[in-house]
């Protein structure tokens, strides 16, 4: 592997981790689509800031772009507050227009802005190693790597310091307010972090794929764990995993790195969705199947117990007549009886079923419950 490749993987990993960390709180606050809004409007911020600073590397660019993210959120709130438009529609109105203005500016001044439409959508991860930061003649590495390291450090520091506040304002903002923990301030703080992270990520993977990094790994982690800190760490780990896997996928397919990372995010979520212990689709199906079997066994035990010791007992308990009495088809009868024998609930003698002591107990429990 060349050092350039290593650097690209490092940038992608830092970006994914940073996005996942702030994304956890967006997902839990049901504000996932705010990431959609912010990543789009950040483009306008970058373009406007470029007109002012005339530089693509100024740290001011980062701050100005992050500010537009916060402005977007405020604008959505402003439109919602007129009560003329609902919140979902407000989001759907505000960010496309900001993004559109950004795209128009980029297209009209393409030569001078040093951004093009491909960058907007895909980022420029593949070229990131060529743009390097030098301090006093020492090569510190690619600019994107330095930027994302700083962004990630800010995210980690903010989450560590304000963990308790973020958790409470997310879970129960009313309680937070009544305890004096200023949920609005915390929310705008979080939005600032999301914006800052989005600006960094925008350079690396483009606008729409930032959404994938902010939402999919946290949602996958949310299906895998029940503790907030574990969800958060897991989300970051899944994000990094997607970044590495996505890079190699892109290498093999010779396709867009950012697109491949997004595809991996989708795959990661799909895996969690299918296989999450206790909560995934498979676990759910297995649980339902088990419940069905348990229910059938109880039915069988109750049926046998009801007629046990009575004149009709033999007729009711004959294997070849059970189907007619319980209204089950042959296959089901065989399956259930086999399961019942395995669990020692019934014994078979000359085609007639008899309950064991354990079977009688099950029937009693099932009825009294």
């Amino acid at each position, binding site marked *: 592997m060349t050092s350039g490749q290593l650097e690209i993987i490092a940038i992608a990993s830092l970006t994914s981790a940073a996005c996942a960390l702030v994304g956890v709180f967006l997902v839990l606050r049901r504000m996932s689509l705010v990431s959609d809004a912010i990543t789009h409007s950040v483009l306008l911020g970058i373009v406007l800031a470029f007109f002012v600073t005339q530089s693509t590397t100024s740290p001011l660019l980062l701050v100005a772009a992050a500010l537009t993210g916060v402005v977007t959120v405020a604008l959505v709130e402003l439109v919602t507050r007129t009560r003329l438009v609902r919140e979902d529609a407000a989001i759907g109105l505000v960010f496309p227009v900001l993004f559109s203005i950004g795209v128009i500016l980029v297209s009209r001044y393409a030569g001078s802005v040093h951004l093009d439409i491909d960058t907007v959508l895909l980022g420029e991860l593949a070229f990131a190693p060529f743009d390097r930061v030098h301090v006093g003649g020492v090569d510190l590495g690619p600019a994107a790597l330095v930027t994302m390291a700083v962004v990630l450090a800010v995210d980690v520091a903010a989450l560590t310091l304000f963990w308790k*506040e973020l958790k409470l304002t997310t879970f*129960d903002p009313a309680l937070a*307010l*009544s*305890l004096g*923990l200023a949920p609005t301030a915390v929310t705008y703080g979080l939005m600032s972090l999301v914006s800052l992270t989005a600006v960094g990520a925008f350079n690396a993977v483009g606008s729409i794929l930032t959404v994938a990094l902010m939402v999919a790994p946290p949602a996958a982690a949310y299906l895998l764990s*029940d503790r*907030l800190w574990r969800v958060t760490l897991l989300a970051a780990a899944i994000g990094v995993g997607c970044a590495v896997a996505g890079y190699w996928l892109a290498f093999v397919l010779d396709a867009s790195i950012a697109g491949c990372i997004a595809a991996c995010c989708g795959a990661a979520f799909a895996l969690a969705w299918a296989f999450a212990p206790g909560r995934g689709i498979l676990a759910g199906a297995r649980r339902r199947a088990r419940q069905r079997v348990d229910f059938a066994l109880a039915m069988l035990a109750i049926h046998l117990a009801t007629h046990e010791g009575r004149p009709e007992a033999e007729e009711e308990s004959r294997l070849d007549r059970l189907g007619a009495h319980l209204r089950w088809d042959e296959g089901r009868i065989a399956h259930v009886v086999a399961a019942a024998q395995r669990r020692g609930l019934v014994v078979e003698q000359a085609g007639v079923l008899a309950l064991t002591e354990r079977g009688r107990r099950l029937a009693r429990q099932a009825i009294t419950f």
Partner: protein
Amino acid sequence: MTTAALEVTDLTVAYGDKPVLWDVDVEVPVGTLTAIVGPNGAGKTTLLRSILGLVKPAAGQALVLGRPYREQRRLVAYVPQRGSVDWDFPTDVRDVVLMGRYGRIGWVRRPGRRDREAADEALRQLGIEHLASRQISQLSGGQQQRVFLARALVQEAELYLMDEPFQGVDATTELAIVELLRALREHGKTIVCVHHDLQTVAEYFDRVVLLNVRTVAAGTVEEVFTEENLRLAYGGRSAAFGRRNGP
């Protein structure tokens, strides 16, 4: 005259142009159990929320033990309706109870040993210590309510504001909650509950505030529950508005 635990004066709240609460006065003596009752849309929840500053009133103020609520936040615990939070949130019971301490702990600092002890003690008091590390989505309605009450207990408040604590809980939990409220009262605490079951008011509470946008009546249960007052409160909005026909 001693200071009231809660004194609300001239409280007016409007959503847009519609008054939800209009010129409401409420006075709650220390060491009492007070129910706020009234028909749907009477503004019961809004009353609690505006006392807590969750809703901005157009006019009026709330004094807690003689001083504005903002200065007395520490002394007030709020138990919201269960539906107000997302029970799928990834956390366990002990952690939710600990959240009650966050105001006391202050910004940035972490919960310490004493906070955890307080949480464990509250869990014991509500008989849910065995649920301490259970994920909150796996609780029954009654258990969720007990968690919220435990969370209020660790706030070590003087005044407890509760929004329908008996809503949708099983009979055992309802009894347990009543016992707890009485125990709190024995310790000189004051409890104000939004309540909707008129049948149990006399049994559970000392005092009642009958609300329908305005304060219809307030006082002991016998004083308040007259036919005239109930007709005023439940006989429709216009009755409570007197001269006006409502918005």
